[in-house]
């Protein structure tokens, strides 16, 4: 008898495409949050598949902390050209200049938390009622209980105790005026799935993910790239090392890892052998045990 089965990676792909189409159908004005990281790159790829041969029926939103790696911006602009998608940039610098956000001070100051203000402002200005994000449940414990369709009240807040149950393939996007949803189509993917898929689909990636020589300093056990925003303090030594990034976010809190991985096969080998989660390099998660849960409640991505 013929077997009607598909592989797990194709099942994940089919599920994500299904969610993207539900989002387009159930909401008036969805937007895809694009950070330049591998997960959001896969999201754009899946969105192209979901609506092919038409263009992606929603714009991309990049919340720009101003603390970027140049490579991320270059990649973003090329991707926009290739897909013909509309790009909207929400600027954290602008939120600060307008007095909407107050910059953290001190050694480990980061604009990570300020992104929330800019994100919520951008959603409101453009009247977006669904924001698609590339969060995965395997990333962090507060995300393990996140829904595919995650309801946010009129203040953009997440209430973990009052989430809608999600059963079968049925997603309830009903809401009142002023409320919105965060939608996470790749919830069920793991880091390994993402990399295997990138290789299988031959998706072009920013150079930051591959090994390169870079000036770094070690701070609180994390290797931070030397940039305009991260400068050595007294007692910190600048070293030039072969590194790459496992995740890409704000340059002030995304740590590099020592690596000589120069192609997809090397990266997959590293992921398979890794004994630390990818967010182990994220200073923003280490602030407290419930750092992610607290930020999510406030409306963080």
């Amino acid at each position: 008898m013929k077997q009607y089965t598909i592989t797990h990676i194709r099942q994940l792909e089919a599920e994500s495409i299904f969610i993207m189409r539900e989002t387009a159908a159930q909401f008036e004005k969805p937007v895809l949050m694009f950070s330049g990281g591998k997960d959001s790159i896969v999201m754009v790829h899946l969105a192209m598949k979901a609506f092919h041969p038409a263009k992606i029926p929603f714009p991309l939103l990049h919340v720009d902390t101003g603390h970027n790696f140049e490579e991320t911006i270059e990649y973003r602009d090329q991707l926009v050209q290739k897909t013909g998608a509309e790009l909207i940039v929400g600027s954290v610098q602008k939120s600060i200049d307008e007095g909407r956000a107050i910059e953290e001070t001190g050694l480990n100051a980061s604009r990570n938390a300020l992104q929330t203000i800019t994100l919520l402002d951008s959603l409101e200005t453009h009247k977006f009622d669904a924001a698609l994000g590339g969060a995965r449940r395997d990333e962090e414990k507060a995300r393990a209980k996140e829904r595919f369709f995650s309801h946010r009240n009129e203040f953009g807040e997440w209430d973990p105790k009052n989430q809608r149950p999600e059963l079968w393939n049925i997603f309830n996007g009903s809401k009142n005026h002023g409320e919105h949803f965060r939608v996470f189509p790749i919830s069920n993917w793991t880091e390994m799935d993402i990399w295997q898929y990138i290789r299988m689909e031959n998706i072009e990636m920013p150079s930051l993910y591959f090994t390169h020589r870079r000036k770094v300093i070690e701070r609180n056990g994390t290797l931070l790239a030397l940039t305009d925003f991260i400068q050595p303090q007294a007692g910190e030594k600048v070293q030039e090392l072969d590194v790459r990034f496992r995740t890409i976010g704000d340059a002030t809190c995304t740590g590099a890892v020592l690596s000589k991985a120069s192609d997809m096969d090397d990266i997959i080998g590293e992921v398979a052998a890794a004994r630390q989660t990818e967010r182990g390099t994220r200073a923003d998660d280490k602030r407290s045990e419930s750092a992610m849960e607290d930020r999510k409640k406030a409306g963080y991505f």
Partner: protein
Amino acid sequence: MSSETEKGYLNMDLLRFTTAGSVDDGKSTLIGRLLYDSKGIFEDQLEAIEKSSKQRGDENVNLALLTDGLKSEREQGITIDVAYRYFATPKRKFIIADTPGHIQYTRNMVTGASTANLAIILVDARNGVVEQTCRHSFIANLLRIQHVVVAVNKMDLVDFKEEAYEKIKKDFSDFASRLDNIIDVTFIPISALKGDNVVKKSEQMDWYAGPSLLYHLETVYIGSDANHVDARFPVQWVIRPHSDEYHDFRGYAGRVAGGVFKPGDEVTVQPSGFSSKIKAIHSMDDPDVKEAYYPMSVSITLEDEIDIGRGDMIVKQNNPPKVEQDLEAMICWFSREKSLQERGKYYIRQTSRSTKAMVKQICYKVNINTLHKVEDDLDVKLNDIARIKLRTASPVIYDSYRRNRNTGSFVLVDEQTNQTVAAGMIL
């Protein structure tokens, strides 16, 4: 990683399973062990829970902290929501829907069970089949999970004796004969704490000839679980590129909910009843997909121009679904604030359709500990299971839940709060 194992990764299939049980059953310990022994958890996660265990004054590393993700859960020491966990072995990839086992979390168990191929029901070897065991089995059966593993846990506390296991096997089998959707029950004696028969076969139980739990999870056959007979394609979205290259392209996008579709198939569109033929089945990589079946997401083009939109269903001509406004269903009630209202109006979401529905009658409730019908108290509250009759404003296109989970399931949405207040399975 050699190229052979890489190829293996891409060829693996997926098993979704659910676990129900209370902390005392050792459920979290079992999941912790599966994750740990299959490298599904990382050093920094382990460090973090070691740190929290110490803070809480726990004697050993408390693996339950791995699954209790929310601050309020850690404070209260209970799992209050469905948590999804992931691990893979070289043979298969697994998604665990980890749910609490107490009766006040029936709705979470129902949610976790709705997408599962298999349920692990934990039984404490010292206590045998108890009320909770029956309840978990009833839910697995109600949600039509076809494969059940009864994991007889804490065998170390009964000196690994066969009698305890055999008694549970017999008691459970007697009870399960009333559960008609479960087609495959496997009993495995384990000790989650010590690791016996979880990943490796135990050396303490020579009398047990079966597989370890992980081996069973890796090899249980699920290829025939989905419906590949009744062709059903609920339309989610219409793709119209409006470009020069694809000027007249009109693709109906959706996920196959049952059966197999091929180019050239004679199809009917419900509820309009118009007929046509499949011109092509598309994905981005392949404009000429030869066969589409569950759970593939594709788009379909037809030979004729017919008016089709979201909520319509493309089906094979010789095998129609039911298209009706009167439904009978089993439901699980989810709302803490309001009871189910007889004559009450709700939105029903079923496949890609949404319409209004009125509750015509509450027939009975089920006592899920005894499986008895309750007809003298029809107040359907949070976590209650009931049989109801619905009348919908426009026709629902469905099969019975028993025949097809995708076309036989629905949720009810409260008109005022927009909350999902019930999950339903059409009879």
